[in-house]
């Protein structure tokens, strides 16, 4: 399995994705830094223009990193898997002496792993920037995290797991429609579902909802590879 994952990275030119992920991380970092210390989210009178409950710095950090990486994961799943079906390189893969489920699972794990690590590192980098920045400057948002506590790290990891796993729903939809676009649009809808708010109603702060959604995503992940052995290609 490990070998298959490595081959996926090599085949799909993972360096390109690393470059994009690093650039995204830097942009996010600068943006959040500007939100916190340069007052770009402030009203002209200097007060923060944020809804109640989102005036803490973790709110924009979670929102923007989740958004970025949920879409990015879906884009990668689309180009690793859906495109492979479309350009028939998947048919080639299926003539190898390897179980089809294993082939597709390796592709999904390859993308999942990459984005999980990238998301965790990006978040850590941003939190560190804010943490260091807050020592010298006044943040517009309330600094509501403690990088010394274990809970902070556990939460960060779990949230990353949830976001990256959710992209399997997008993959399932993309595969059903045989369309990369469908996968990416689904990832946008998932963001609306998980991060947006309608008036005061939002699922962003809910703790049970992401757990349910992660479980649902895993079901979708299993469904995407369940039938692959018996299908005609």
């Amino acid at each position: 399995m490990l070998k298959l994952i490595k081959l996926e990275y090599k085949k799909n030119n993972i360096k390109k994705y690393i470059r994009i992920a690093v650039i995204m991380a830097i942009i996010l970092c600068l943006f959040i830094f500007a939100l916190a210390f340069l007052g770009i989210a402030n009203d002209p009178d200097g007060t923060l223009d944020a809804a109640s409950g989102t005036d803490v710095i973790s709110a924009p950090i979670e929102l923007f990193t989740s958004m970025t990486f949920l879409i990015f994961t879906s884009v990668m799943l689309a180009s690793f898997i859906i495109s492979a079906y479309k350009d028939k390189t998947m048919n080639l893969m299926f003539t190898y002496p390897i179980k089809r489920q294993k082939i597709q699972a390796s592709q999904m794990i390859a993308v999942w792993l990459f984005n999980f690590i990238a998301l965790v590192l990006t978040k850590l980098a941003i939190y560190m920037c804010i943490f260091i920045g807050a020592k010298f400057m006044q943040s517009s948002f309330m600094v509501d995290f403690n990088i010394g506590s274990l809970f902070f790290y556990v939460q960060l990891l779990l949230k990353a797991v949830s976001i990256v796993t959710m992209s399997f729903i997008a993959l399932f939809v993309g595969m059903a429609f045989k369309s990369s676009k469908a996968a990416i649009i689904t990832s946008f809808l998932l963001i609306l579902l998980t991060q947006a708010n309608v008036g005061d109603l939002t699922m962003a702060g809910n703790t049970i909802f992401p757990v349910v959604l992660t479980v649902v995503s895993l079901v979708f992940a299993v469904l995407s590879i369940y039938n692959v052995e018996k299908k005609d290609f």
Partner: protein
Amino acid sequence: MSYILQTDHLGKIIDGKEIVTDVNIHITKGEIYGFLGPNGAGKTSVMKMITNLWKPTNGRVSLFGKTLETTSYEVFKRMGSIIEFPTFYEHLSGKDNLQFHCEYMGYYNKGSVMEALEMLNLIDSADKPVKNYSLGMKQRLGIARAILCRPELVILDEPTNGLDPAGMKQIRDLFKMLCTEYGMTLMISSHLLSEIESIANTIGVINQGKMMKEIAIEEIAETNTFYVELVVEDMKRAAFVLAENMHLSNFKIIGDSTIRIYEQGVATQKVSKELMLNDVAILSITQHTESLEDYFLKMTQGV
């Protein structure tokens, strides 16, 4: 007799439509099997079932003496194939594509990639990305990949598509060489008989999803109709001479002046001499052999 590849009443129905019906193929080890049929006859469908990309609705496929199951994988270590058209990772070079193939096949033999590239004249383009290859080059790279891991059985779907005549000749020679020197068994599909007749040992003809005939090349030559066509002025007299003087019985009168003699081993000189001796004026005398092409056309159009 044991076959390296055998299909037994193979059938495939898609959306209620019969794509392949009752196809029986028998391929012995070390032979080149020409799988012949017009476009849309079901060649690719059969080959997809042989390589397990499609699961048969009816019948079964046996490879190396074992029935192919939905979950058969190990058997593909012993096979190489091109199905439909060769697909590649277009952004990678030809060489990288072959190297990936080795990795997935679990075949580690140093130098085999370069050797395969050399066999198919692709050394100069080895490091170019496949997206810059011409159709013919892709086809050759596909063949290189199919034979790369020294498979025992090679399934090639229209492998000479997009090749120029010189290229075709070269590929045909390569196939023969693979068969004689490496002991590979090849199944090659084509809609052009001329591509296959010079190299195949056995030919299977498929049309409209049905197997029309499976026959050894030598047998075709034997069963092929050979005839001498005579055009004479006095037909009655000519027929009389043939029957009485030459004791021929297997001939047919066509129209007012043409006679076809189907008797095996009849020499044209002998016929003309005998007729002249009997004062029958001969307008023309020609010898005909029904070519494999005619045979193939008869096979596929006579349905």
